């Protein structure tokens, strides 16, 4: 291979990785946490009991809706599982004459008064208002405080850069495959490079998969031309991709709705898999229809089949046709990205790979400064670009985890009755992060790094302790009732807390070796070690 080509690839790798690296870091961190979305949805609401009989929740949901919104246009009821906090159901009221409402399910936010959480005992639960794990899931591609469409473009663009960085990285540094068993510790730049390589190569299949399938999830937005060229009406595309049963007109004749538990049981028998969503249109009318979607936990593709029943007689009237090859492929890729099919073991693997990806991005960003520091004309007064990257690294890599720790604390400490409580939890994250960023730009990095890591560590370690003392969902209580999910989240937070503390100590104790490198390879080894613990 000609030298010029290799060099150009190395250049590409450096700059495609750097420019949007900080956004990639955020996306990786939030996405990695979002693999435990369901678990966090429960962890952030410690007052809710675990669901043991999903059918009881369903019966309770139907009873509640029959009383509360008997003449709604539709009800949407998620089928509770042992992993979910209950059934977060909502309903769409009848449109007022002259007011046309679009697709109800995609109505976005602002449906606060038409949704309710039904708990394990089939009753409405008064839980603290929180976005829980959903926050990380949405932040992972919608970011926050900005229009969703901008955020998706930004994330989509960062993802493309990631793909470029991965490809050019493989091409440039073919040696990584031969060298990847090697980790030279306490050797400055070499150690950073080894750590960067190890996290990149060890989880390379995951990195490629997650980046590519991540682009697939955004493909309709990033590359709309195929759709635009073939269809004039967006709605037709939508109808083709997500087919539904023919809509029936409301008759106006009242008729009792069948017990949804019977339909759910029948659907699960026919699908051979658990159901995830039940949608009832025109409940209480003779033309009521009940649609059941199969759970995405049971299959690879995220485009799950649906069955539609007559809501009065309980007769099956429609089943979704098998999707086309392209739709099936896209569905499978999105399924692969989100890993919803994965059991607990698979979830852990996704999580660990996500950590590897996070460390890869973080170490790559730090490596940029480590590499250039040696070549600075005057190391005590680096040029502006260098200082900017250095400070941004501290602000993002050090600050964002601190913000997340504050999010969890806000979830525990904010008064339950606070107005806009869920929003304040998120504000807490960004306020803490903003303070960290200010500190990063004001104080010397050698001080801020350990301070931020230490603060994050202390906050994370203290969380399970708080749970133990102040809630009845402490680690031991959860273990006693076999609630491994909640216990696991508490334990994982403690492990991460200790890892951050250790990291802070290593960074703080480090003395630059003869003014060559500032930091020991501690960061890399520490984070690589985490998965093993």
């Amino acid at each position, binding site marked *: 291979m000609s030298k010029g080509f290799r060099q150009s690839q190395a250049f590409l790798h450096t700059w495609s990785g750097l420019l949007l690296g900080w956004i990639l870091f955020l996306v990786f961190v939030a996405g990695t946490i979002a693999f435990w979305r369901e678990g966090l949805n429960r962890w952030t609401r410690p007052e809710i009991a675990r669901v043991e009989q999903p059918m009881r929740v369903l019966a309770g949901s139907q009873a509640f809706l029959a009383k509360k919104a008997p003449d709604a246009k539709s009800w949407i009821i998620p089928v509770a599982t042992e992993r979910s906090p209950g059934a977060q159901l909502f309903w769409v009221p009848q449109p007022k004459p002259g007011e046309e409402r679009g697709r109800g399910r995609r109505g976005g936010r602002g449906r606060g008064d038409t949704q309710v959480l039904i708990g394990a005992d089939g009753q409405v639960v008064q839980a603290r208002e929180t976005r829980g794990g959903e926050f990380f899931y949405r932040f992972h591609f919608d970011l926050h405080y900005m229009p969703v469409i901008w955020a998706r473009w930004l994330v989509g663009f960062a993802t493309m850069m990631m793909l470029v960085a991965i490809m050019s990285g493989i091409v440039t540094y073919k040696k990584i495959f*031969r060298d*990847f*068993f*090697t*980790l030279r*510790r306490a050797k400055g730049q070499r150690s950073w490079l080894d750590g960067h390589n*190890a996290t990149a190569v*060890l*989880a390379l*299949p*995951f990195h490629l*998969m997650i980046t590519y399938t991540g682009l697939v999830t955004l493909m309709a937005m990033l590359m709309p031309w195929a759709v635009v060229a073939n269809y004039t009406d967006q709605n037709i595309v939508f109808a083709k991709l997500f087919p539904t049963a023919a809509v029936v007109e409301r008759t106006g004749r009242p008729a009792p709705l069948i017990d949804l538990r019977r339909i759910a049981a029948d659907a699960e028998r026919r699908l051979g898999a658990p159901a995830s969503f039940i949608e009832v249109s025109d409940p209480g009318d003779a033309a009521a229809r009940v649609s059941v979607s199969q759970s995405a936990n049971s299959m*690879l593709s995220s485009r799950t089949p649906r069955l539609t029943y007559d809501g009065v007689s309980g007769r099956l009237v429609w089943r979704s046709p098998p999707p086309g090859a392209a739709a099936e492929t896209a569905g499978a890729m999105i399924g*692969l990205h989100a890993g919803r*099919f994965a059991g607990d*073991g*698979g979830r852990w*693997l996704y999580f*660990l*790979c996500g950590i*590897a990806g996070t460390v890869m991005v973080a170490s790559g960003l730090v490596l940029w400064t480590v590499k250039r520091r040696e070549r600075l004309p005057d190391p005590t007064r680096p040029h502006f670009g260098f200082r900017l990257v250095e400070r941004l690294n501290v602000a993002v890599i050090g600050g964002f985890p601190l913000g997340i720790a504050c999010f969890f604390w806000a979830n525990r400490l904010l008064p339950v009755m606070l107005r806009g409580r869920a929003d304040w939890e998120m504000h807490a994250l960004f306020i803490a992060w903003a303070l960290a960023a200010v500190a990063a730009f004001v104080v010397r990095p050698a001080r801020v790094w350990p301070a931020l890591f230490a603060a994050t560590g202390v906050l994370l370690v203290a969380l399970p302790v708080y749970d133990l003392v102040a809630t009845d969902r402490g680690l031991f209580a959860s273990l006693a009732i076999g609630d491994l999910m909640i216990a696991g989240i508490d334990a994982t937070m403690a492990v991460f807390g200790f890892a951050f503390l250790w990291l802070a100590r290593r960074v703080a104790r480090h003395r630059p070796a003869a003014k060559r490198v500032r930091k020991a390879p501690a960061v890399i080894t520490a984070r*690589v*070690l985490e*998965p*093993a613990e």
Partner: protein
Amino acid sequence: MSILSLLLATAAFVLLGLATDAHHRRRFGQCPPPSRRRMLRTGGWLALVASVAPAMLARGWIFGPILWVGVIMAGAGIAFLALNFLPARGAAGDRSCM
């Protein structure tokens, strides 16, 4: 079956790792003779290929390959950590093996 697959994949990467100069010296105190290196490499690759079968048996043709890819990543990770962080008998010393 998935455990078996994981064990095979881990063994595969440990063998492949031991076939490198640096790790062989660290573990056995000397550079690997060519015949031994070949043996380690062959063993590693065979174990890696063998780990496909239990993964397929465990999860079928759709999830089996996904499981297998996951398993080789986990195996490589475990091997990497074990080779680099388990205390070794031989000293690392200089790394040239000629």
